């Protein structure tokens, strides 16, 4: 009689344990299903809008005839090896400005979703300023290339953001 009772008690303990384990598993599932994955991607429209806005930016390079040049105009000025009214070389202004804009727009680092970037500006297939690159060029990237056509030549502005 005593042995039978002990067996029944053991069965009850076993059943209780199973209930607890199942409950814990359910709670873990519940926690995972409710936690949201963090968004870590760069969207294509961000890269596309960046190039468009970058080209329309008013630079500090002034020309007495046309006023302050946009980056778009500055690219062709640089291609023609022209200087700004204040004596600065247009290519130096373009390079400095591009670097400043990209550094502020695409913060590269471990805390950021951006792991690296690259910007290439060329006219008629020839790079007019050295390529701007920073960070790691990972396997995941979003890029955009803007083509400009003018009588002076065909310009290509290619930007890629790595994440």
């Amino acid at each position, binding site marked *: 009689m005593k042995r039978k009772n002990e067996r029944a008690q053991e069965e009850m303990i076993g059943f209780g344990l199973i209930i607890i384990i199942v409950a814990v598993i359910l709670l873990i599932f519940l926690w995972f299903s409710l936690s949201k994955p963090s968004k870590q991607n760069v969207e294509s429209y961000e890269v596309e809008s960046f190039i*468009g806005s970058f080209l*329309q930016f008013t630079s500090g390079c002034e020309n007495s005839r046309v006023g*302050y040049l946009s980056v778009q105009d500055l690219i062709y000025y640089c291609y023609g090896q022209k200087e700004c009214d204040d004596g600065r070389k247009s290519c130096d202004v373009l390079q400095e400005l591009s670097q400043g804009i990209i550094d502020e727009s695409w913060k590269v680092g471990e805390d950021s979703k951006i792991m690296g970037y690259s910007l290439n500006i060329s006219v008629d297939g020839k790079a007019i300023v050295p390529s701007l690159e920073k960070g790691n060029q990972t396997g995941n990237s979003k890029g955009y290339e803007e083509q400009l056509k003018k009588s002076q030549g065909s310009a290509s502005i290619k930007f890629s953001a790595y994440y």
Partner: protein
Amino acid sequence: MQIMVNKKSQTKIQQTAVMLIAVTLFFVLVGLFVLSFRLSGLKNEATTLQEQNAILLVTKLSNSPEFSCGESFSGKKINCVDADKIMMLREDITKYNNFWGVADIKIRKIYPTTDGDVECTLSNYPQCNVINLIQKGVVGTYESSFVTLCRKEIKDNSFYDKCELARLMVSYKTVQ
């Protein structure tokens, strides 16, 4: 003999009671799990819809009549926001509070850089870097796109176009 039979019956009744409680608890937990899973799916769907709406809005907003530069800045520009127009719109924004259906709309100047955040008002414009257009004070997630923020500047008694780089930020309410 009678006492022993009674005790045995009591133990069996207790065992059945415990079993019934355990089984009920188990089914209640399963029910809760299924319910929360379905609810979280609905919440995720609602947040995704809000997010898609914000993305669509952020990509189109800069070209809408309320924001766009039109042809005021030497020719037609895309992704161009007229800062002067926005400052005036900001003064009368109550009419637009529910027009775009989002929690927040703001424009943050990126380049040239400014030390810290200075909110734009009519008294400090353009020496500022954040234009808060709509602020509903709701905790949300931002979607943003780059825009050219243009305004008219004066130099030697003549006007010229000054276009800077900014981020147009739209916030949507995440469903908790």
